[in-house]
């Protein structure tokens, strides 16, 4: 049963899909990793919570879904670490603490010769959030992973964080700050489940993000930005954008519970805030995103 559920659920995660699509061997590896990682807790949970075979299937599917989300986030964190290291190494503003000095191998601003930092990460996260005009480049929800931010924004955020820290930072500390600053990047695209047992989400099959980009081509810059933002949203997210202030409508669209509808609304607002950014045209872009998603829903 576990293998079958993993086979079904894994196909919903583009970020986990191997380059040459899922093969049996990949799914067996994933199955093995799940067993090694979670079998003790899942077995206990099922013993305590399941009352029959049907409830066992539902509970197990939920465990597998959240474990796969966790795996998807881990791969993204790995990619984020590599991107950060590449940018820091290539930019003149940063350097590694030389061998033999305190904090060897950490990152610092060039010419500062500081001691290793050991403060509260929350302060650094607040600093990262306060950096203005951060731009997240567009990507399509149909691709495997979104970018963190454009190179200039990454440099600006890392520079501000190292300045406020006043000390050198491990790459892992910088990654932690970036993860907290850009949670939308870690948010894995999750596809629909073909014949989900009562938990399927009706997806909008209308315009693809790419078609929306083409349609918006002749519009002003704000409209293009809005189309880019729409392209970064999963189809089910596009569907609920017009209902962000109407959780009961989200309940109807997604077929979920009340609290989940409110959470989906809060989550998507947070994601849109990050994707739209904080530029002068934020309101215009935001409205155009809603309009684009609304017309997509109507077209459906």
């Amino acid at each position, binding site marked *: 049963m576990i293998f079958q559920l993993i086979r079904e659920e894994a196909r919903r995660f583009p970020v986990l899909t191997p380059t040459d699509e899922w093969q049996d061997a990949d799914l067996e590896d994933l*199955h093995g990793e799940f067993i090694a990682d979670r079998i003790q*807790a899942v077995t206990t*949970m*099922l*013993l305590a919570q399941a009352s029959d075979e049907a409830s066992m299937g539902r509970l197990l599917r939920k465990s597998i879904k959240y474990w796969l989300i966790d795996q998807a986030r881990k791969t993204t964190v790995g990619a984020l670490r590599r991107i950060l290291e590449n940018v820091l190494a290539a930019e003149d503003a940063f350097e590694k603490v030389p061998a033999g000095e305190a904090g060897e191998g950490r990152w610092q601003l060039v010419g500062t010769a500081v001691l290793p930092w050991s403060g509260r990460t929350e302060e650094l996260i607040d600093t990262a959030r306060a950096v203005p005009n951060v731009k997240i480049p567009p990507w399509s929800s149909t691709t495997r992973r979104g970018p963190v931010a454009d190179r200039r924004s990454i440099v600006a955020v890392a520079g501000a964080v190292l300045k406020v820290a006043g000390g050198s930072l491990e790459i892992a500390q910088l990654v932690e700050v970036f993860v907290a600053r850009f*949670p939308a990047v870690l948010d894995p695209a999750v596809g629909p489940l073909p014949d989900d047992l009562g938990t399927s989400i009706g997806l909008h099959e209308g315009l693809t993000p790419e078609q929306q980009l083409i349609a918006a081509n002749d519009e002003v810059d704000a409209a293009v930005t809005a189309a880019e933002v729409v392209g970064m949203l999963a189809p089910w997210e596009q569907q609920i954008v017009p209902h962000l202030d109407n959780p009961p409508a989200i309940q109807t669209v997604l077929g*979920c519970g009340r*609290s989940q509808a409110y959470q989906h609304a809060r989550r998507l607002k947070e994601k849109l805030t990050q994707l739209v950014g904080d530029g002068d045209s934020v309101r215009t872009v935001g409205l155009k995103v809603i309009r684009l998603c609304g017309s997509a829903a109507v077209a459906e």
Partner: protein
Amino acid sequence: MSDLGLPQRFLDLAKEARGPRALSEEGLRERFGAPTEIEIDAGQVWRARWDEVSVLVLVLAVEDRDVLAAPVTIDPPAEDDHSVVLASSFIAFDVEATVWAGLTCLLPIRVLDRPMDEWSEDLVRWATHTAQRRPSATPAGTRQGHAIQSELDPAALLQAELVDDLELLSQAPSLPVDTPDATPRDLASFLGTNLDLGSLCSSLGLGQPQVMRLLRGKTPLAPDQIEIVARATGLSSREISATVRRLPLGLVVKMEHPRWRHTWAQRAQRFHVSEAQARLTCSYDVFALAARETGGGEPDWDQRLRQFLHEEETDAGGA
């Protein structure tokens, strides 16, 4: 290698993962006795279940028909800043568990299914204080949960799912209970001169004695019967359902106790009805049985139910 091609070490792991013995049927009976003798108490961790929803809850306080309870999760692993994570060595689960004190709510006793563990008074006190937003030191064997930093954190969705599940549990159907201010009219007096007995018998597909019992409110109208009577009489479903005679609180409290859930589940399966319908029908049968007997004071409803079940079994055996 197996048919699936899984390495043997994974299969060995899966085979070893039998779960703690404390959660086996034998282990549960050793700790809590037979399901028919169970008492609900603060500090117990129960499986709360209705239809497709199943949640573990830590009971903080017990009232007549409700418990104050905080949800508990084992997997998927998640937490928030109003939760504590219990170390595996302190509980029967042998794995970590999260107590979500910030999601504490009242749940009807009728959704409690089976006790799974029993935790310390310190933990109950902490959860109660936290639910009331009063500061309290985290108990031994626990650590404070980490805050959910973003709505994009999967824990935020898991938390919302938990709240929805608790809401569904709180809406599990209850037995109609008599209240001092209620002045019910039976269906017969409600219909008055508009009563057409023949038409009702025909619509319901029942004999006159059975319909008379429905008219006097001595047998509960099933949901589909309420609709049929409403159509046949031109009255609303709400008006019809209000004529069903309500059950005494003492009986309702006993029938909704988890010690009888196994009985309702068995009867539901046997008669191809829902658990709620099995409990409703049997409760009225027990009420009718008690009404035929003499003697003052509140009847021993548990005893009446045992008697009813025994007589039913005897009749079935003799038939």
